[in-house]
Protein backbone atom coordinates (compact mmCIF):
# COMPACT_ATOMS: atom_id res chain seq x y z
CA UNK A 1 0.00 0.00 0.00
CA UNK A 2 1.45 3.44 -0.90
CA UNK A 3 2.58 5.24 2.24
CA UNK A 4 0.19 7.86 3.60
CA UNK A 5 -2.86 6.44 1.84
CA UNK A 6 -4.22 4.23 4.62
CA UNK A 7 -6.08 7.11 6.33
CA UNK A 8 -7.69 8.11 3.03
CA UNK A 9 -8.82 4.55 2.33
CA UNK A 10 -10.23 4.13 5.86
CA UNK A 11 -12.15 7.40 5.54
CA UNK A 12 -13.47 6.34 2.13
CA UNK A 13 -14.63 2.94 3.42
CA UNK A 14 -16.35 4.57 6.40
CA UNK A 15 -18.32 6.85 4.10
CA UNK A 16 -20.76 4.03 3.42
CA UNK A 17 -21.52 3.53 7.14
CA UNK A 18 -20.11 2.66 10.57
CA UNK A 19 -17.70 -0.29 10.65
CA UNK A 20 -15.45 -1.97 13.24
CA UNK A 21 -11.69 -2.40 12.72
CA UNK A 22 -11.77 -5.92 11.33
CA UNK A 23 -14.56 -5.04 8.90
CA UNK A 24 -12.61 -1.98 7.69
CA UNK A 25 -9.56 -4.15 6.94
CA UNK A 26 -11.67 -6.78 5.15
CA UNK A 27 -13.47 -4.13 3.09
CA UNK A 28 -10.22 -2.55 1.89
CA UNK A 29 -8.76 -5.95 1.06
CA UNK A 30 -11.88 -7.18 -0.77
CA UNK A 31 -12.48 -3.97 -2.73
CA UNK A 32 -8.88 -3.94 -3.95
CA UNK A 33 -8.97 -7.64 -4.98
CA UNK A 34 -6.32 -8.33 -2.35
CA UNK A 35 -3.91 -5.95 -4.10
CA UNK A 36 -3.76 -3.57 -1.15
CA UNK A 37 -2.56 -5.43 1.88
CA UNK A 38 -0.83 -4.19 4.97
CA UNK A 39 -0.28 -5.43 8.47
CA UNK A 40 -3.87 -5.21 9.66
CA UNK A 41 -2.81 -4.05 13.10
CA UNK A 42 -1.40 -0.83 11.58
CA UNK A 43 -5.03 0.21 11.15
CA UNK A 44 -5.31 0.95 14.89
CA UNK A 45 -2.66 3.72 15.25
CA UNK A 46 -4.31 5.31 12.19
CA UNK A 47 -7.77 5.05 13.77
CA UNK A 48 -6.40 6.60 17.00
CA UNK A 49 -5.07 9.56 15.02
CA UNK A 50 -8.46 9.97 13.31
CA UNK A 51 -10.20 9.96 16.69
CA UNK A 52 -7.80 12.65 17.92
CA UNK A 53 -8.33 14.80 14.82
CA UNK A 54 -12.09 14.41 15.15
CA UNK A 55 -12.49 12.77 11.73
CA UNK A 56 -14.25 9.70 13.22
CA UNK A 57 -16.08 8.83 16.41
CA UNK A 58 -16.04 5.43 18.11
CA UNK A 59 -18.89 3.62 19.81
CA UNK A 60 -18.73 0.31 21.69
CA UNK A 61 -20.69 -2.57 20.18
CA UNK A 62 -20.74 -6.29 19.46
CA UNK A 63 -19.53 -7.83 16.20
CA UNK A 64 -21.40 -10.37 14.05
CA UNK A 65 -19.38 -13.07 15.80
CA UNK A 66 -20.27 -11.78 19.27
CA UNK A 67 -16.93 -10.06 20.05
CA UNK A 68 -16.80 -6.70 21.85
CA UNK A 69 -15.55 -4.21 19.30
CA UNK A 70 -15.78 -0.49 18.54
CA UNK A 71 -17.72 0.84 15.58
CA UNK A 72 -16.15 3.85 13.86
CA UNK A 73 -18.37 6.50 12.23
CA UNK A 74 -17.25 9.24 9.82
CA UNK A 75 -17.85 12.79 11.12
CA UNK A 76 -18.57 15.89 9.00
CA UNK A 77 -14.99 17.00 9.55
CA UNK A 78 -13.82 13.54 8.43
CA UNK A 79 -15.86 13.83 5.21
CA UNK A 80 -14.21 17.18 4.47
CA UNK A 81 -10.79 15.69 5.16
CA UNK A 82 -11.58 12.81 2.78
CA UNK A 83 -12.40 15.26 -0.01
CA UNK A 84 -9.17 17.13 0.62
CA UNK A 85 -7.10 13.93 0.60
CA UNK A 86 -8.74 12.64 -2.57
CA UNK A 87 -8.11 15.96 -4.34
CA UNK A 88 -4.46 15.95 -3.27
CA UNK A 89 -4.04 12.34 -4.28
CA UNK A 90 -5.61 12.85 -7.70
CA UNK A 91 -3.42 15.87 -8.34
CA UNK A 92 -0.27 13.97 -7.40
CA UNK A 93 -1.31 10.92 -9.44
CA UNK A 94 -2.07 13.04 -12.51
CA UNK A 95 1.33 14.70 -12.24
CA UNK A 96 3.11 11.38 -11.92
CA UNK A 97 1.21 9.96 -14.91
CA UNK A 98 2.11 12.99 -17.00
CA UNK A 99 5.77 12.43 -16.22
CA UNK A 100 5.52 8.73 -17.01
CA UNK A 101 3.85 9.41 -20.36
CA UNK A 102 6.03 12.27 -21.55
CA UNK A 103 9.43 12.10 -19.89
Amino acid sequence: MPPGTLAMLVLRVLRSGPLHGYAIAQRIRALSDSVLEAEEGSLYPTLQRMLLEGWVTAEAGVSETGRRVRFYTLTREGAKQLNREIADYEQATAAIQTILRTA
Partner: protein
Amino acid sequence: MPKFLRRLSALFHSSRMQRKLGEEMAAHRDMMPADRRPYFGSTLRFQEEAGDQWGWTWLDHFRQDLLYGARSLRRSPGFALAAIAVLSLGIGANLAEFDLFNAFLHRLNVPDPDSLCQFFRISRQNPATGSFAIPETESYRRENTVLSAVISETDLRDACPAEDSVELRCVLVSGNFFGALRVPLWFGLVAPLMAQSIPQPAFDVASVKPSPASGPSNSNFPLGPGNAYTPNGGYFSATGFPLITYIAFAYKVMGEQSLEQLPGWARTDRFDIQARVQGNPTKDQMRLMMRSLLAERFKLAIHDDTRQVSVAALVLVKASKLGSQLRAHPADSPCPTDAPPAAVSSDPRYPLLCGGLLPMQPSAPGRIRLAGRNVTIDFIAKSLTPGVGQGRPLVDRTTLTGTFDFNIEWAPEIPGPVKPGAEEQPDRGPTFEEALREQLGFKLESQKGPIPVFVVDHLEHPSEN
Protein backbone atom coordinates in the same frame (compact mmCIF):
# COMPACT_ATOMS: atom_id res chain seq x y z
CA MET B 1 -14.83 18.74 21.39
CA PRO B 2 -11.67 20.62 20.40
CA LYS B 3 -8.54 18.62 19.66
CA PHE B 4 -6.73 19.90 22.74
CA LEU B 5 -9.52 18.70 25.05
CA ARG B 6 -9.53 15.27 23.38
CA ARG B 7 -5.78 15.11 23.92
CA LEU B 8 -6.16 16.17 27.56
CA SER B 9 -8.90 13.60 28.08
CA ALA B 10 -6.55 10.91 26.73
CA LEU B 11 -3.95 11.91 29.34
CA PHE B 12 -6.36 11.25 32.20
CA HIS B 13 -7.82 8.06 30.72
CA SER B 14 -4.68 6.61 29.16
CA SER B 15 -4.74 3.26 30.97
CA ARG B 16 -8.43 2.69 30.14
CA MET B 17 -7.79 3.61 26.51
CA GLN B 18 -4.82 1.25 26.31
CA ARG B 19 -6.95 -1.55 27.75
CA LYS B 20 -9.79 -0.96 25.29
CA LEU B 21 -7.37 -0.83 22.39
CA GLY B 22 -5.78 -4.10 23.53
CA GLU B 23 -9.21 -5.78 23.68
CA GLU B 24 -10.12 -4.40 20.26
CA MET B 25 -6.96 -5.70 18.64
CA ALA B 26 -7.37 -9.08 20.35
CA ALA B 27 -10.92 -9.32 18.96
CA HIS B 28 -9.62 -8.40 15.50
CA ARG B 29 -6.95 -11.09 15.68
CA ASP B 30 -9.53 -13.68 16.83
CA MET B 31 -11.83 -12.85 13.94
CA MET B 32 -9.05 -13.36 11.39
CA PRO B 33 -8.72 -16.83 9.80
CA ALA B 34 -5.98 -18.78 11.59
CA ASP B 35 -3.67 -18.78 8.53
CA ARG B 36 -3.82 -14.97 8.23
CA ARG B 37 -3.17 -14.11 11.90
CA PRO B 38 0.62 -13.66 11.38
CA TYR B 39 -0.31 -10.76 9.02
CA PHE B 40 -1.75 -8.79 11.91
CA GLY B 41 1.68 -7.57 13.10
CA SER B 42 2.99 -6.83 16.60
CA THR B 43 0.20 -5.84 19.00
CA LEU B 44 2.69 -4.24 21.40
CA ARG B 45 4.22 -2.08 18.66
CA PHE B 46 0.80 -0.90 17.45
CA GLN B 47 -0.25 -0.09 20.99
CA GLU B 48 2.87 2.08 21.39
CA GLU B 49 2.30 3.75 18.03
CA ALA B 50 -1.35 4.38 18.94
CA GLY B 51 -0.27 5.93 22.26
CA ASP B 52 2.20 8.19 20.38
CA GLN B 53 -0.71 9.67 18.42
CA TRP B 54 -2.09 11.25 21.59
CA GLY B 55 1.16 13.12 22.23
CA TRP B 56 1.82 12.21 25.87
CA THR B 57 4.63 9.72 25.35
CA TRP B 58 7.20 12.23 26.54
CA LEU B 59 5.30 12.60 29.81
CA ASP B 60 5.27 8.87 30.27
CA HIS B 61 9.01 8.73 29.59
CA PHE B 62 9.59 11.57 32.05
CA ARG B 63 7.58 9.74 34.71
CA GLN B 64 9.60 6.58 34.06
CA ASP B 65 12.88 8.52 34.32
CA LEU B 66 11.77 10.07 37.63
CA LEU B 67 10.82 6.67 39.00
CA TYR B 68 14.16 5.27 37.81
CA GLY B 69 15.98 8.16 39.52
CA ALA B 70 14.06 7.64 42.77
CA ARG B 71 14.85 3.91 42.71
CA SER B 72 18.56 4.64 42.09
CA LEU B 73 18.62 7.13 44.95
CA ARG B 74 17.12 4.56 47.30
CA ARG B 75 19.44 1.79 46.14
CA SER B 76 22.75 3.73 46.41
CA PRO B 77 22.09 7.02 48.21
CA GLY B 78 25.78 7.88 48.72
CA PHE B 79 26.58 7.92 45.00
CA ALA B 80 23.37 9.78 44.12
CA LEU B 81 23.95 12.49 46.74
CA ALA B 82 27.57 12.95 45.62
CA ALA B 83 26.40 13.39 41.99
CA ILE B 84 23.73 15.90 43.06
CA ALA B 85 26.25 17.88 45.14
CA VAL B 86 28.81 18.03 42.31
CA LEU B 87 26.19 19.15 39.80
CA SER B 88 24.77 21.79 42.18
CA LEU B 89 28.21 23.20 42.94
CA GLY B 90 29.08 23.29 39.23
CA ILE B 91 25.90 25.13 38.27
CA GLY B 92 26.19 27.53 41.22
CA ALA B 93 29.84 28.36 40.47
CA ASN B 94 29.01 29.08 36.84
CA LEU B 95 26.15 31.39 37.79
CA ALA B 96 28.27 33.25 40.34
CA GLU B 97 31.08 33.66 37.82
CA PHE B 98 28.69 35.08 35.24
CA ASP B 99 27.19 37.51 37.76
CA LEU B 100 30.62 38.73 38.88
CA PHE B 101 31.77 39.18 35.30
CA ASN B 102 28.61 41.05 34.45
CA ALA B 103 28.76 43.26 37.53
CA PHE B 104 32.43 44.28 37.50
CA LEU B 105 34.06 43.63 34.15
CA HIS B 106 31.33 43.87 31.59
CA ARG B 107 29.32 46.75 33.01
CA LEU B 108 28.98 49.89 30.94
CA ASN B 109 29.28 52.97 33.07
CA VAL B 110 26.16 54.65 31.68
CA PRO B 111 22.62 54.99 33.01
CA ASP B 112 20.30 52.24 31.80
CA PRO B 113 22.88 50.11 29.94
CA ASP B 114 20.24 47.49 29.12
CA SER B 115 18.57 49.87 26.69
CA LEU B 116 21.69 50.07 24.49
CA CYS B 117 21.96 48.01 21.36
CA GLN B 118 24.65 47.81 18.72
CA PHE B 119 24.15 47.70 14.97
CA PHE B 120 26.57 46.16 12.56
CA ARG B 121 26.44 45.10 8.98
CA ILE B 122 26.58 41.47 7.88
CA SER B 123 26.39 40.46 4.25
CA ARG B 124 26.37 37.09 2.59
CA GLN B 125 29.62 37.88 0.79
CA ASN B 126 31.34 39.07 3.94
CA PRO B 127 30.12 37.31 7.08
CA ALA B 128 32.55 39.29 9.25
CA THR B 129 30.96 42.26 10.97
CA GLY B 130 31.17 45.52 9.06
CA SER B 131 30.79 49.13 10.04
CA PHE B 132 28.95 52.11 8.54
CA ALA B 133 30.30 55.11 6.66
CA ILE B 134 29.96 58.49 8.39
CA PRO B 135 27.32 59.85 5.96
CA GLU B 136 25.28 56.67 6.55
CA THR B 137 25.31 57.10 10.32
CA GLU B 138 24.40 60.75 9.88
CA SER B 139 21.46 59.71 7.72
CA TYR B 140 20.32 57.08 10.26
CA ARG B 141 20.61 59.61 13.06
CA ARG B 142 18.53 62.14 11.21
CA GLU B 143 15.83 59.77 9.96
CA ASN B 144 15.53 57.80 13.22
CA THR B 145 12.06 57.84 14.73
CA VAL B 146 12.19 54.56 16.65
CA LEU B 147 15.19 54.72 18.98
CA SER B 148 15.69 57.47 21.52
CA ALA B 149 19.01 58.29 19.85
CA VAL B 150 21.53 56.92 17.36
CA ILE B 151 25.16 57.44 18.28
CA SER B 152 28.26 56.33 16.43
CA GLU B 153 31.91 55.82 17.20
CA THR B 154 34.94 54.77 15.23
CA ASP B 155 38.43 53.76 16.30
CA LEU B 156 41.16 56.04 14.99
CA ARG B 157 44.16 53.77 14.71
CA ASP B 158 47.54 55.50 14.86
CA ALA B 159 45.81 58.87 15.19
CA CYS B 160 47.10 59.43 18.72
CA PRO B 161 50.75 58.29 18.60
CA ALA B 162 52.28 57.88 22.04
CA GLU B 163 55.94 58.79 22.30
CA ASP B 164 56.36 57.24 25.71
CA SER B 165 55.03 54.01 27.14
CA VAL B 166 51.47 55.23 27.55
CA GLU B 167 49.26 54.08 24.71
CA LEU B 168 46.31 56.28 23.88
CA ARG B 169 43.13 54.93 22.43
CA CYS B 170 41.50 57.52 20.19
CA VAL B 171 37.85 57.19 19.25
CA LEU B 172 35.90 59.55 17.06
CA VAL B 173 32.31 59.85 18.30
CA SER B 174 29.19 61.54 16.99
CA GLY B 175 28.21 64.92 18.38
CA ASN B 176 25.32 63.51 20.41
CA PHE B 177 27.46 60.75 21.97
CA PHE B 178 27.74 62.20 25.48
CA GLY B 179 24.28 63.73 25.56
CA ALA B 180 22.52 60.56 24.45
CA LEU B 181 24.46 58.32 26.86
CA ARG B 182 23.98 60.88 29.65
CA VAL B 183 27.63 60.74 30.66
CA PRO B 184 29.56 63.95 31.33
CA LEU B 185 32.39 65.01 29.11
CA TRP B 186 35.43 65.07 31.45
CA PHE B 187 37.61 67.33 29.46
CA GLY B 188 37.38 69.37 26.26
CA LEU B 189 34.57 70.46 24.02
CA VAL B 190 32.14 68.81 21.69
CA ALA B 191 33.06 69.86 18.17
CA PRO B 192 30.32 71.19 15.91
CA LEU B 193 28.64 68.95 13.38
CA MET B 194 31.29 66.52 12.21
CA ALA B 195 30.39 66.96 8.58
CA GLN B 196 31.72 70.50 8.79
CA SER B 197 35.27 69.27 9.26
CA ILE B 198 35.01 67.64 5.84
CA PRO B 199 35.34 70.10 2.95
CA GLN B 200 31.82 71.17 2.05
CA PRO B 201 30.69 72.38 -1.32
CA ALA B 202 30.51 76.18 -1.40
CA PHE B 203 29.20 78.90 -3.68
CA ASP B 204 31.80 80.52 -5.92
CA VAL B 205 30.55 84.01 -5.05
CA ALA B 206 27.95 85.13 -2.56
CA SER B 207 26.53 88.39 -1.28
CA VAL B 208 24.70 88.76 2.04
CA LYS B 209 22.90 92.05 2.75
CA PRO B 210 20.38 93.12 5.37
CA SER B 211 16.93 93.50 3.79
CA PRO B 212 15.03 96.76 3.84
CA ALA B 213 12.65 97.00 6.80
CA SER B 214 9.60 96.24 4.71
CA GLY B 215 9.25 94.44 1.45
CA PRO B 216 8.10 91.12 0.09
CA SER B 217 9.92 87.83 0.63
CA ASN B 218 10.91 86.12 -2.58
CA SER B 219 13.18 83.32 -3.73
CA ASN B 220 13.91 81.79 -7.11
CA PHE B 221 12.95 78.32 -5.85
CA PRO B 222 11.04 77.07 -2.75
CA LEU B 223 13.18 77.13 0.42
CA GLY B 224 11.11 74.53 2.28
CA PRO B 225 12.23 71.08 3.31
CA GLY B 226 10.58 69.41 0.29
CA ASN B 227 12.02 68.45 -3.07
CA ALA B 228 10.21 71.13 -5.08
CA TYR B 229 12.97 72.88 -7.01
CA THR B 230 13.54 74.89 -10.14
CA PRO B 231 17.14 74.45 -11.32
CA ASN B 232 18.54 77.91 -11.99
CA GLY B 233 21.95 77.15 -13.44
CA GLY B 234 23.65 77.47 -10.05
CA TYR B 235 22.00 80.76 -9.11
CA PHE B 236 20.52 81.25 -5.65
CA SER B 237 18.48 84.33 -5.03
CA ALA B 238 16.36 85.10 -1.98
CA THR B 239 15.26 88.44 -0.58
CA GLY B 240 13.50 89.52 2.58
CA PHE B 241 13.69 86.26 4.56
CA PRO B 242 14.69 86.12 8.24
CA LEU B 243 17.93 84.23 8.94
CA ILE B 244 15.99 81.30 10.43
CA THR B 245 14.59 80.55 6.95
CA TYR B 246 18.08 80.17 5.50
CA ILE B 247 19.20 77.94 8.42
CA ALA B 248 16.04 75.82 8.06
CA PHE B 249 16.71 75.52 4.32
CA ALA B 250 20.35 74.51 4.82
CA TYR B 251 19.63 71.84 7.46
CA LYS B 252 16.12 70.75 6.33
CA VAL B 253 14.74 71.86 9.69
CA MET B 254 11.03 71.13 10.10
CA GLY B 255 9.35 73.65 12.37
CA GLU B 256 10.80 76.21 14.73
CA GLN B 257 10.64 73.87 17.72
CA SER B 258 13.34 71.74 16.06
CA LEU B 259 15.84 74.58 16.24
CA GLU B 260 17.18 75.28 19.72
CA GLN B 261 19.25 78.08 21.24
CA LEU B 262 18.62 80.33 18.27
CA PRO B 263 19.17 84.00 19.17
CA GLY B 264 16.05 86.15 18.87
CA TRP B 265 17.50 88.39 16.18
CA ALA B 266 17.83 85.41 13.84
CA ARG B 267 14.03 85.21 13.78
CA THR B 268 13.49 88.90 13.09
CA ASP B 269 16.50 90.23 11.13
CA ARG B 270 15.90 89.75 7.44
CA PHE B 271 18.56 89.25 4.78
CA ASP B 272 18.95 89.16 1.02
CA ILE B 273 21.28 86.46 -0.25
CA GLN B 274 22.48 86.19 -3.83
CA ALA B 275 24.97 83.44 -4.66
CA ARG B 276 26.26 81.65 -7.68
CA VAL B 277 28.15 78.47 -8.45
CA GLN B 278 29.19 76.86 -11.71
CA GLY B 279 27.20 73.92 -13.01
CA ASN B 280 23.66 72.91 -12.24
CA PRO B 281 23.53 71.81 -8.60
CA THR B 282 20.62 69.87 -7.07
CA LYS B 283 18.53 71.30 -4.26
CA ASP B 284 20.38 69.22 -1.65
CA GLN B 285 23.73 70.44 -3.03
CA MET B 286 22.40 73.98 -2.70
CA ARG B 287 21.59 73.22 0.94
CA LEU B 288 25.18 72.08 1.57
CA MET B 289 26.51 75.25 -0.06
CA MET B 290 24.18 77.31 2.11
CA ARG B 291 25.66 75.56 5.18
CA SER B 292 29.15 76.66 4.11
CA LEU B 293 27.91 80.19 3.52
CA LEU B 294 26.22 80.38 6.93
CA ALA B 295 29.33 78.99 8.64
CA GLU B 296 31.54 81.51 6.86
CA ARG B 297 29.46 84.69 7.12
CA PHE B 298 27.41 84.10 10.26
CA LYS B 299 29.96 81.83 12.04
CA LEU B 300 27.11 79.37 12.48
CA ALA B 301 28.08 76.32 14.53
CA ILE B 302 25.30 73.80 14.90
CA HIS B 303 24.92 70.18 15.97
CA ASP B 304 22.03 67.80 15.89
CA ASP B 305 20.58 65.90 18.80
CA THR B 306 17.46 64.03 19.85
CA ARG B 307 14.82 64.99 22.40
CA GLN B 308 12.13 62.91 24.07
CA VAL B 309 9.08 65.13 23.93
CA SER B 310 5.34 64.77 23.95
CA VAL B 311 4.28 64.58 20.35
CA ALA B 312 1.00 64.52 18.48
CA ALA B 313 1.03 61.16 16.74
CA LEU B 314 -0.72 60.97 13.40
CA VAL B 315 -2.63 57.68 13.12
CA LEU B 316 -5.31 56.35 10.81
CA VAL B 317 -8.90 56.61 12.09
CA LYS B 318 -9.69 53.30 10.39
CA ALA B 319 -6.95 50.86 9.43
CA SER B 320 -5.95 51.15 5.75
CA LYS B 321 -8.77 53.65 4.98
CA LEU B 322 -7.62 57.00 3.62
CA GLY B 323 -9.66 60.20 3.78
CA SER B 324 -11.38 61.70 0.74
CA GLN B 325 -8.62 64.25 0.16
CA LEU B 326 -5.72 61.80 0.46
CA ARG B 327 -4.75 59.22 -2.12
CA ALA B 328 -1.77 57.04 -2.92
CA HIS B 329 0.25 58.91 -5.53
CA PRO B 330 -0.52 57.41 -8.98
CA ALA B 331 2.82 56.15 -10.28
CA ASP B 332 2.01 56.91 -13.91
CA SER B 333 1.04 60.59 -13.57
CA PRO B 334 3.52 63.27 -14.70
CA CYS B 335 5.39 64.60 -11.70
CA PRO B 336 7.45 67.77 -12.29
CA THR B 337 9.33 69.27 -9.34
CA ASP B 338 9.73 72.62 -11.07
CA ALA B 339 6.15 73.39 -12.16
CA PRO B 340 4.65 76.83 -11.44
CA PRO B 341 2.99 76.78 -7.99
CA ALA B 342 -0.39 77.83 -9.42
CA ALA B 343 -0.59 74.96 -11.94
CA VAL B 344 -2.94 72.14 -11.01
CA SER B 345 -2.73 68.48 -11.99
CA SER B 346 -5.40 66.53 -13.89
CA ASP B 347 -7.26 66.30 -10.55
CA PRO B 348 -7.78 69.98 -9.63
CA ARG B 349 -7.61 69.15 -5.90
CA TYR B 350 -3.86 68.63 -6.18
CA PRO B 351 -1.12 70.93 -7.53
CA LEU B 352 0.96 69.90 -10.53
CA LEU B 353 4.16 70.47 -8.60
CA CYS B 354 5.50 67.34 -6.93
CA GLY B 355 7.51 66.83 -3.77
CA GLY B 356 6.61 70.05 -1.96
CA LEU B 357 3.98 71.74 0.17
CA LEU B 358 1.91 74.42 -1.54
CA PRO B 359 -0.60 76.92 -0.14
CA MET B 360 -3.74 76.79 -2.30
CA GLN B 361 -6.69 79.15 -2.66
CA PRO B 362 -9.06 78.29 0.23
CA SER B 363 -12.79 77.86 -0.44
CA ALA B 364 -13.70 80.56 2.11
CA PRO B 365 -11.91 83.58 3.55
CA GLY B 366 -9.97 83.09 6.77
CA ARG B 367 -9.15 79.44 6.13
CA ILE B 368 -5.87 77.74 5.30
CA ARG B 369 -5.61 75.27 2.47
CA LEU B 370 -2.44 73.29 1.85
CA ALA B 371 -1.76 70.60 -0.72
CA GLY B 372 1.07 68.48 -2.02
CA ARG B 373 1.76 65.68 -4.46
CA ASN B 374 4.11 62.69 -4.32
CA VAL B 375 5.05 63.28 -0.69
CA THR B 376 5.47 60.84 2.20
CA ILE B 377 3.18 60.83 5.23
CA ASP B 378 6.25 61.79 7.26
CA PHE B 379 6.57 64.89 5.11
CA ILE B 380 2.86 65.69 5.50
CA ALA B 381 3.14 65.30 9.29
CA LYS B 382 6.15 67.55 9.51
CA SER B 383 4.60 70.12 7.17
CA LEU B 384 1.37 70.26 9.15
CA THR B 385 3.11 70.56 12.54
CA PRO B 386 2.22 74.27 12.93
CA GLY B 387 -1.49 73.31 12.74
CA VAL B 388 -1.26 71.26 15.98
CA GLY B 389 -0.29 74.24 18.10
CA GLN B 390 1.16 74.21 21.63
CA GLY B 391 4.59 73.58 20.11
CA ARG B 392 3.92 69.86 19.82
CA PRO B 393 5.50 68.21 16.79
CA LEU B 394 3.27 66.13 14.57
CA VAL B 395 4.88 62.76 13.84
CA ASP B 396 3.90 59.99 11.49
CA ARG B 397 2.75 56.83 13.29
CA THR B 398 0.49 55.55 10.51
CA THR B 399 2.84 52.83 9.17
CA LEU B 400 1.72 53.89 5.68
CA THR B 401 4.53 53.61 3.14
CA GLY B 402 4.99 55.11 -0.30
CA THR B 403 4.03 58.58 -1.45
CA PHE B 404 0.68 60.32 -1.45
CA ASP B 405 -1.24 63.30 -2.82
CA PHE B 406 -3.13 65.36 -0.26
CA ASN B 407 -5.23 68.47 0.12
CA ILE B 408 -6.42 69.83 3.46
CA GLU B 409 -8.35 72.93 4.42
CA TRP B 410 -9.11 74.10 7.94
CA ALA B 411 -10.05 77.22 9.87
CA PRO B 412 -7.22 78.19 12.19
CA GLU B 413 -8.05 79.44 15.69
CA ILE B 414 -6.53 82.74 14.67
CA PRO B 415 -8.11 83.28 11.22
CA GLY B 416 -5.84 83.59 8.21
CA PRO B 417 -5.65 86.74 6.09
CA VAL B 418 -9.00 87.97 4.75
CA LYS B 419 -8.98 90.00 1.59
CA PRO B 420 -10.23 93.55 2.04
CA GLY B 421 -13.91 93.69 1.22
CA ALA B 422 -14.52 89.95 1.72
CA GLU B 423 -16.69 89.09 4.68
CA GLU B 424 -15.76 86.30 6.99
CA GLN B 425 -18.25 83.43 6.78
CA PRO B 426 -20.43 82.79 9.85
CA ASP B 427 -19.50 79.10 9.53
CA ARG B 428 -15.79 79.27 10.19
CA GLY B 429 -15.10 75.78 8.87
CA PRO B 430 -13.50 72.67 10.35
CA THR B 431 -10.83 72.89 13.02
CA PHE B 432 -7.46 71.37 12.24
CA GLU B 433 -8.33 68.09 13.97
CA GLU B 434 -11.73 67.88 12.26
CA ALA B 435 -10.09 68.51 8.88
CA LEU B 436 -7.49 65.83 9.55
CA ARG B 437 -10.22 63.32 10.37
CA GLU B 438 -12.72 64.18 7.64
CA GLN B 439 -10.37 65.02 4.77
CA LEU B 440 -7.29 62.86 5.33
CA GLY B 441 -8.70 60.06 7.54
CA PHE B 442 -6.22 60.75 10.34
CA LYS B 443 -6.61 61.42 14.06
CA LEU B 444 -4.18 62.71 16.66
CA GLU B 445 -2.96 60.78 19.69
CA SER B 446 -0.77 62.14 22.47
CA GLN B 447 2.42 60.10 22.73
CA LYS B 448 5.99 60.46 23.86
CA GLY B 449 8.60 60.10 21.18
CA PRO B 450 12.08 61.07 20.03
CA ILE B 451 12.38 63.99 17.64
CA PRO B 452 15.55 65.20 15.98
CA VAL B 453 16.56 68.74 16.87
CA PHE B 454 19.31 71.11 15.84
CA VAL B 455 21.13 73.04 18.55
CA VAL B 456 22.75 76.31 17.56
CA ASP B 457 26.10 76.51 19.37
CA HIS B 458 27.22 79.79 17.91
CA LEU B 459 25.87 82.52 15.65
CA GLU B 460 27.12 86.03 14.86
CA HIS B 461 25.85 88.95 12.87
CA PRO B 462 27.12 88.64 9.32
CA SER B 463 30.56 89.73 8.28
CA GLU B 464 31.05 92.17 5.42
CA ASN B 465 30.93 90.76 1.91
